[in-house]
């Protein structure tokens, strides 16, 4: 239902542009060309690497793909520094770029074995492949992020999370891991063995070495019911806390310049599978972009048109196994800033962010994602010490994102937000030390495991206050 309306909006904007002639075209043409990029091969013959959104680039002198843990250990000992592990390249921060060695764990993929209901998983396994692998045993991850392209190691390194007030981020399911240090040592750690390394390594930005395998808690692979609906933004705000308490997973998207929100809930069910249907997200985004292009000059008109076209869309329902529904395809690339706020300030911050965007940035059309995450105790977990509520602002990959630093980050910081490690932010060193009680402990473990800083690129040196 949403997609049909989206098509009408997208088509309508084209028709209106043609009808309005040149002036209309100027109003509507907010679509930008492909961003400029460096050459595919540099003067030294090295191949370009870019992250998913395209804003991070590098020409690594070596690209390493160890086939097993032994090869990983020997590669780490001799690789040209900085050695940076990379997964699916979904981080928007400069965690992966290196002029030295870019190391992929793509060959270390799959479930190795089971210990009861805990799975021993190779760390290069992509989340999208982990779901069906666990399902073969009738098990599943307790929660998943909304994109499943990431490697398990990359998702853990950046404290990647889903949503649900009783559900922790992915690293909350880790009961043990194996870390290969830059000098080739292999360290098994858990809460009972090498506990300090474990608490540091569960969320460690790929800065301590390379995690080769992970022991994961799993849950029974149940079917869940997914509901998606549109409602007034103020209703979404008023009902959010009750919904987080009620649903296994709940999140919503505030849609700026529409006065609307999109709610998404997931709950366990024994009902038979019900097909999810074709992807609606891209069509919805096209509709929002069409509204921006056509009516970006007038927020009242844009809101009125959005309500008329989108507010009465019928809710959508699907039933399937959790790993098939919790993550979705995100075929439209974007850049993103997400901060994790004290839960009791989340909605107030959201309101301020929406008001700021609607006052200052009519070019924004992406919905703002609002999630809730349970607490854990990993030292660099943004959820350490208490539940957090996340607010994520996106911009189309062709659009300006500098305003995120200028307008949005100050709001997040004023309310004690901790940045998502893989998403845009400017925090470093003492600013982070003030947010993380175990920051110095982490830096101490890092220095012990990598005294020469072979895992540190310039970005990480700055982050850790080592420049």
């Amino acid at each position, binding site marked *: 239902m949403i997609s049909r309306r989206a098509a009408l909006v997208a088509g309508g904007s084209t028709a209106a542009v043609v009808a309005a002639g040149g002036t209309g075209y100027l109003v509507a043409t907010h679509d930008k060309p*492909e961003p400029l*990029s460096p050459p*595919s091969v540099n003067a030294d013959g090295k*191949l*370009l*690497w*870019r*992250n*998913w*959104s*395209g804003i991070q680039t590098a020409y690594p002198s070596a*690209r*390493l*793909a160890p086939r097993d843990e032994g090869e990983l250990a020997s590669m780490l000992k001799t690789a040209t520094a900085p050695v940076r592990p*990379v997964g*699916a*390249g*979904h981080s928007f921060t400069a965690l992966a770029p290196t002029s030295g060695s*870019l190391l*992929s764990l*793509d*060959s270390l*993929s799959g479930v190795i074995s089971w210990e009861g209901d805990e799975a021993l998983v190779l760390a290069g396994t*992509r989340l*999208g492949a982990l779901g069906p692998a666990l399902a073969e045993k009738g098990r599943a991850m307790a929660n998943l992020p909304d994109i499943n*392209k990431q490697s398990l190691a990359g998702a853990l390194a950046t404290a990647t999370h889903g949503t649900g007030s009783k559900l922790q981020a992915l690293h909350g399911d880790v009961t043990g891991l194996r870390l290969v240090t830059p000098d080739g040592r292999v360290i098994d750690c858990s809460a009972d063995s090498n506990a300090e390394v474990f608490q540091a390594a569960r969320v460690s930005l790929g800065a301590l070495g390379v995690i080769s395998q992970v022991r994961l808690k799993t849950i029974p692979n149940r079917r869940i019911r997914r509901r998606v609906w549109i409602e007034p933004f103020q209703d979404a705000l008023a009902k959010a806390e009750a919904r987080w308490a009620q649903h296994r997973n709940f999140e919503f998207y505030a849609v700026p310049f529409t006065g609307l929100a999109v709610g998404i809930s997931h709950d366990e069910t024994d009902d038979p599978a019900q097909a999810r249907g*074709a*992807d609606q997200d*891209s069509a919805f985004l096209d509709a929002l972009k069409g509204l921006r292009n056509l009516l970006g000059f007038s927020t009242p008109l844009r809101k009125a048109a959005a309500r008329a076209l989108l507010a009465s869309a019928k809710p959508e329902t699907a039933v399937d196994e959790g790993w098939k529904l919790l993550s979705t*395809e995100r*075929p*439209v*690339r974007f850049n993103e800033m997400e901060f994790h706020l004290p839960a009791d300030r989340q909605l107030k911050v959201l309101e301020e962010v929406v008001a700021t965007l609607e006052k200052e940035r009519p070019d924004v059309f992406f919905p703002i994602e609002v999630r809730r995450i349970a607490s854990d105790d990993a030292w660099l977990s943004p959820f350490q010490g208490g539940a957090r509520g996340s607010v994520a602002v996106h911009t189309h990959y062709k659009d300006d994102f500098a305003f995120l630093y200028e307008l949005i980050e100050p709001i997040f910081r004023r309310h004690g937000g901790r940045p998502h490690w893989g998403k845009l932010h400017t925090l470093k060193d003492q600013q982070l030390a003030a947010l993380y009680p175990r920051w110095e402990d982490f830096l101490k473990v890092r220095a012990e495991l990598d005294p020469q800083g072979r895992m540190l690129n310039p970005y990480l040196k700055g982050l850790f206050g080592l420049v």
Partner: protein
Amino acid sequence: MRAVLSAIAAILLLAACGEKPPVAPTPEQALLLKPADPRLAGLYETSCKACHAAPDTGAPQVHDRAAWDPRWKQGEAVLLDHTIQGYKAMPASGQCATCAPDDFKGLIRFMAGREDPA
């Protein structure tokens, strides 16, 4: 004369039929396709299949010649550059950090249904 024209027409018709791209695989068939080369098959599974064997993504689907042929006409160099740089919904390198240019060429040929250069 009529017989000659008929023969020419038949040849042209056959030629036209020969140019028609093969029928695209169904989504179920697409999921089973993979390159014959084991290395390429591994790279395809990890980096390409999630979008190029999933119709909802908008990516040209594997062995869908109707979708690939207009792209193929741009030439291998253009397709390779788009792959390395990223283009529209396609992320740079298909997020394959260890793919070399020859890997990309092989993967493009496979997905475009052009594995046999002849």
